[in-house]
């Protein structure tokens, strides 16, 4: 009974451990505490818990919960950046769905996601699978592959622009070897989206690679050995032993990558400003332009909520589908 009370008062696991490892006498002493003092003790402890959680809770409430609720309210209002606000109900959503550019940016965002997510997962999983403990200096490779992820995206973009632009590295190399000009990747409507995706994959695969690499290291050697003794090829061992074992990590990485790729903004905004035309303009840039260039905060908030619903729906589908392929031990 006492043990249960203690756990309720302080949810931290350490408390349970203390009771377990404490000398028998101590445990008895706890048991023998007068019943009357316990509520006060519990109250003080939860007060402390609340005090420690307060900075985070206040921050969460002020900077996350309030803005989210506010943006939902704003999305039902005509809210120019400066001037009066009026309640317009679903008018912003109607305007949004009537705007042909909105559907163009939804299509662009979908194109980006469809290209980026599989490429990112294949590259990161491939490299993680390659970086087995048998590879010499694999820690150095891991660090090298992780560097693009921790470098500020703005700096990455500047470097990639130098590669892509006319007379840049790619163009100059092609000219000197084949005597042909490379396309103007960032200004050509056929190439611009591919250029943005390629840069994003380079900048983003490191994080997933690290997750997969750690998960692969955790696959028990005994299972792999058993498969090898049964005569399984390396390919079969990977697909039938390692892959199911790391499927929870793959599920997590897929979910996170999908969510962040729907929110893509920095790469296209800095590389192409959404151009040429609207070829690389994504949903978040559309929201940004609507809010900060056109100064229609209501319409921008409605756009943000549409994005939220899209992400929520796709995440829900993922969770439903995971039962078929994710194996939890």
């Amino acid at each position, binding site marked *: 009974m006492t043990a249960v009370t203690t756990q309720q008062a302080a949810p931290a696991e350490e408390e349970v451990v203390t009771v377990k490892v404490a000398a028998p006498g101590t445990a008895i002493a706890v048991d023998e505490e007068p019943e009357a003092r316990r509520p006060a003790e519990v109250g003080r402890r939860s007060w402390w818990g609340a005090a420690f959680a307060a900075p985070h809770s206040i921050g969460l409430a002020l900077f996350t919960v309030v803005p989210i609720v506010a943006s939902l309210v704003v999305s039902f209002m005509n809210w120019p950046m400066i001037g009066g606000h009026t309640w317009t109900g679903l008018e912003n959503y109607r305007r949004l769905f009537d705007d042909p550019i909105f559907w163009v940016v939804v299509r662009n965002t979908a194109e980006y996601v469809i290209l980026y997510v599989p490429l990112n997962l294949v590259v990161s999983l491939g490299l993680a699978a390659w970086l087995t403990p048998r590879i010499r200096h694999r820690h150095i490779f891991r660090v090298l592959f992780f560097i693009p992820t921790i470098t500020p995206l703005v700096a990455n973009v500047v470097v990639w622009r130098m590669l892509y632009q006319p007379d840049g590295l790619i163009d100059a190399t092609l000219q000197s070897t084949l005597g042909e000009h490379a396309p103007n990747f960032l200004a050509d*409507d056929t190439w611009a989206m591919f250029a943005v995706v390629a840069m994003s994959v380079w900048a983003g695969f490191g994080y997933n690679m690290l997750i997969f690499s750690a998960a692969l290291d955790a696959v028990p050697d005994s299972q792999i050995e058993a498969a090898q003794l049964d005569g399984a090829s390396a390919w079969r061992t990977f697909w039938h032993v390692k892959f199911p074992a790391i499927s929870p990590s793959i599920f997590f990485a897929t979910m996170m990558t999908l969510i962040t790729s729907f929110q893509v903004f920095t790469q296209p905004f800095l590389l192409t400003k959404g*151009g*040429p035309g*609207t070829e690389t303009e994504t949903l978040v840039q559309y929201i940004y*332009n609507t809010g900060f260039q056109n100064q229609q905060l209501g319409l921008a908030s409605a756009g943000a909520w549409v994005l939220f619903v899209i992400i929520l729906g796709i995440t829900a589908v993922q969770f439903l589908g995971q039962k078929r392929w994710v194996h939890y031990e």
Partner: protein
Amino acid sequence: MKRRLLVGVTAAAAAWGLLVGCSSSSSTSNQSKDKLVWSMWIAGSSDKAAWQQVANSVSAQGGPKVTIQGAPFNDYFTKLRTQLSTGSAPCVVSIQSLRAANYTDVLRPIDSYAKKGGFDLSAFDTTALNGMKVDGKLYALPYDTGPMLLFYNKDLFKQVGAEEPKPGWKLADFTAAAAKFKAAGKTMFASSVADMNLESMILGYNGGRVIKADGTLDPSNPTFAKGLDWLSSLVKNGTATQASADNDTPSNNFVSKKVGMYLDGPWSLLSQKDKVKFPIGVTTIPAGHTSGPSTFSAGSGFGISKQCAYPDQAFKAITTMTSQKVLTTLARQGRAFPGRTAAQQTWYDNAHIDGVESVLKTAQKASAPLPGNKQSDQLQQLFSQYGIQAVNGQQSGAETMKSIAGQLGQ
């Protein structure tokens, strides 16, 4: 009990401190008669030092203490708009002439303050002062001004055997020089899709404008679309580079000697002169099929926000910040071309560039102020998205302007 109270208060204070710490260091909420905040775009440490000197000059003249709240130029107007809409407006606001129309709802007209104090507005450059007026009301005192110009690499011109452009040169001279560059396997001109650059180049070519003199938008103007086609023909025949969405590319290509010439304003001339490793020349935009103005001029100045509770003190501050003394000091330091006529000679003397005075005077005479419009920020964004399609020849000028007009709701 007391201890618990003490702990509680301390924790609350710490949490509050954390939250407050997240906000801007030079908060605008504690402005007073003696203490004003000035929002300004800042490009680096030397920029900051120069503007700090300007801020200090106000208190040195017995005015309020002015604290700078800086932001990089690319973020400045987004930040300003947000600040002005949330009620945390700085009293002194830096503004560009071409954006003044976009901010009349949040800026205070200052004519009455000038009249009240008998402040002499005639000492300012007329073009600069007119640029800060919207519907006849003055919204800022100009600190710099200038028409768009062409900066060129004197060495490259000599190397390809092209004649150095004289102020007031014509389209035929431009084409002749481009032919020399092409013969030598070089590119003469750096294409740009920045709004003011595109609009100035086309104004010089055929007088086409996307913003009429009265500030209304005219995106389907056929003459302007033809101007875009001309710029595209320059790319096609190798006179100009392909355009990029990055507005810094032309300047970078010029500094790295990839092109012989690019468009910029006098506000960049002296800093660019220090950056390049060749003698820099400057000339006017070539006039083509037009008898009217052949370049746009613009400038920046300091205004007062509508929400400012201390407009008299703010007006005193901006008069000091644009005084003869301050602008002459800035000119001596090699900064922007001053908005006061009497300070301009110091700038010419300090420039040490052959013929710069005659070029600027010719260009000023041939210039018209670029009017602003409430949608000019949006137009700028649309040019960087769609303009490259027109200039690089993927779409005709008319098709491009049709897309832009559609997005502007025209």
